């Protein structure tokens, strides 16, 4: 196969442009250069000779149309009797299409300093809007909850149970295992540090305090933020991208009631239960290390916990669970509703849901710790 070419024979009058060889996608780069150099040399009077033209595809035809110009294409039929009808039709079809098509103008770039400022401003404004939307969404969720709670007919029990299974039951193994190991690690740390003071017995207090007040709820919340908030966003997001949310609205149903409430309630039910499990499993991990390393038998461990640790430590830990649960679920759902049609957007918002919910959980936990300290709880 010969690469396409276009040669101008200026010795003839009028000058003659001989187009030959294959004008196909495979030779696009070469041909494009040929077109660029030859086009400038053409004048209205130049005669065109296409008799040696080989294979022609749409890519080649678009270059050829570009070279010849729309005007010459019009009288190809008379000027080029040897050109096969099929190729002529292709050239003319492409010519017509290209007449409609304008090359998109490149976007002018701003200078970099203004761009940086603009981006900072844009991001700040974006963050502000997101917070307002989150507040609005929380309000909407509470309002829907208040409205549905008095109408038992509109309770979505099946959906709720299914979500409790997914967010709660299915998370039991991972939560238990993880907190068990962290409990063991905390006990190890305690035994190492406290050994210097001859106070290894306080390892029990360390494990119990940290798990009842902080680690139980915090670890569970972070795990569920990664596991469930992302799932909520991806589920609702792909429904949004697929116009399923619009379909729900068009059917006169309420997506808040149908999609958000069961998820929020399931989370509200699951997180406290998982937190309790996490606390127990952390204590077991700690007790195991105490038994193996510090020779504190489990019976003594339980006895020490009973005598040293008041029930209020458990209470201040567990009351955080429903609050975290509500926020994680609401953030996951809201991010899902923000998805805009593309697969990429689903990914972006899923990431954002996880980051936001973990951030909110840790922030609130820190605030709560300060508050409890001031209150002397």
């Amino acid at each position, binding site marked *: *196969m010969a690469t396409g070419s276009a040669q101008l024979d200026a010795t003839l009058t009028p000058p003659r442009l001989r187009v030959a060889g*294959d004008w*196909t*996608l495979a030779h*696009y*780069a070469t041909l*494009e250069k040929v077109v660029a150099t030859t086009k400038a040399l053409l004048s209205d009077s130049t005669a065109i000779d296409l008799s040696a033209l*080989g*294979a*022609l*595809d*749409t*890519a080649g*035809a*678009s270059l050829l149309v570009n070279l010849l110009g729309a005007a010459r294409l019009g009288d190809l039929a008379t000027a080029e009797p040897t050109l096969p*009808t*099929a*190729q002529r*039709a*292709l050239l003319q*079809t*492409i010519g017509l*299409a*290209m007449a*409609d*098509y*304008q*090359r*998109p103008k490149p976007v002018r770039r701003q200078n970099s300093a203004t761009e940086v400022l603009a981006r900072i401003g844009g991001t700040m404004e974006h963050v502000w809007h997101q917070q307002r939307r989150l507040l609005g969404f929380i309000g909407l969720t509470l309002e829907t909850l208040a409205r549905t709670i008095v109408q038992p007919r509109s309770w979505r029990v099946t959906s709720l149970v299914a979500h409790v299974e997914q967010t709660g039951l299915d998370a039991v193994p991972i939560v238990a295992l993880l907190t068990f190991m962290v409990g063991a690690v905390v006990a190890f740390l305690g035994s190492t540090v406290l050994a210097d003071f001859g106070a290894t017995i306080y390892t029990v207090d360390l494990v119990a305090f940290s798990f009842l007040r902080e680690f139980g709820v915090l670890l569970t919340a972070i795990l569920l933020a990664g596991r469930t908030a992302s799932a909520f966003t991806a589920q609702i997001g792909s429904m949004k*991208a697929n116009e399923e949310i619009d379909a729900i609205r068009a059917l006169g149903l309420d997506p808040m009631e149908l999609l958000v409430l069961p998820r929020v309630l399931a989370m509200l039910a699951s997180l406290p239960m998982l937190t309790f499990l996490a606390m127990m499993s952390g204590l077991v991990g700690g007790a195991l290390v105490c038994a193996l390393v510090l020779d504190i038998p489990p019976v003594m461990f339980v006895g020490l916990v009973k005598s040293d640790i008041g029930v209020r430590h458990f209470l201040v830990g567990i009351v955080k669970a429903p609050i975290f649960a509500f926020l994680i679920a609401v953030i996951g759902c809201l991010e899902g509703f923000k998805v*805009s*049609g*593309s*697969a*990429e*957007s689903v990914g972006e918002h899923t990431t954002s849901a996880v980051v936001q919910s973990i951030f909110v959980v840790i922030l609130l936990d820190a605030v709560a710790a300060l508050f409890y300290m001031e209150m002397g709880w």
Partner: protein
Amino acid sequence: MNAVLKPSPQDDVIQVRNLVNRFGTQTVHEHLDLDVRRGEILGVVGGSGTGKSVLLRSIVGLRRPTSGQVHVFGQDLLSLPPEKRSQLERRFGVLFQNGALFSSLNIVENVAMPLIEHGGLTRPDAQTLAGVKLALAGLPAGAETKYPSELSGGMVKRAALARSLALDPEILFLDEPTAGLDPISAAAFDQLILTLRDALGLTVFLVTHDLDTLYTICDRVAVLSQKKVLVVGPLDEVAQYNDPWVQSYFHGPRGRAAEEAHEVK
């Protein structure tokens, strides 16, 4: 270049033999046979849910049939090593029933992608050429930078058509290309396919419910019914076939209207 014009020893570019497709207990195809000849436009018709899209997916190698052979260009796609398979797939253009545009790329980028990946073009060249293909497919100017989620249903079809045409494929698989197009665009589409077939020697596997398209551009028509290809041949022969579904399809009110419209021309 003469390779395209020389009569090839292998004139059936697609051969389907004894194809069986099952989903669980549901049998969609039972011992289905079909040949598609080089350079023809084959119209595939059949009621909704008769397995036209599944047949298309089996031929392009996206679905492993329960049993049976599918040969494209004389080769069994599913048993080829990956590079060979990819080379073969490059010679296909597929328009999926729902468009299947990449939602995170805008339309120009959608069409430019195969040109960059397989055509070896630079990004600006590919985008210019993609613009031409989009115009060819009849997409209005100014829509090039939109994302698939921002398009109308007909625009999705056109953009998907432009993408399937990007590499000037040898076989074009079209799943209901004119569904959702207005009649004027549908007629323009018919002409475009004819022009491209004549100029490039395309083979077209065209699933359609559009009777006008069948009458205007199809060389042969295959009727999918009762889990197999019931009849295949030139349209007027197929229309005479003695089967209640075929009869009501071609001689129902719409079939008659399309036939008359075609005869007037």
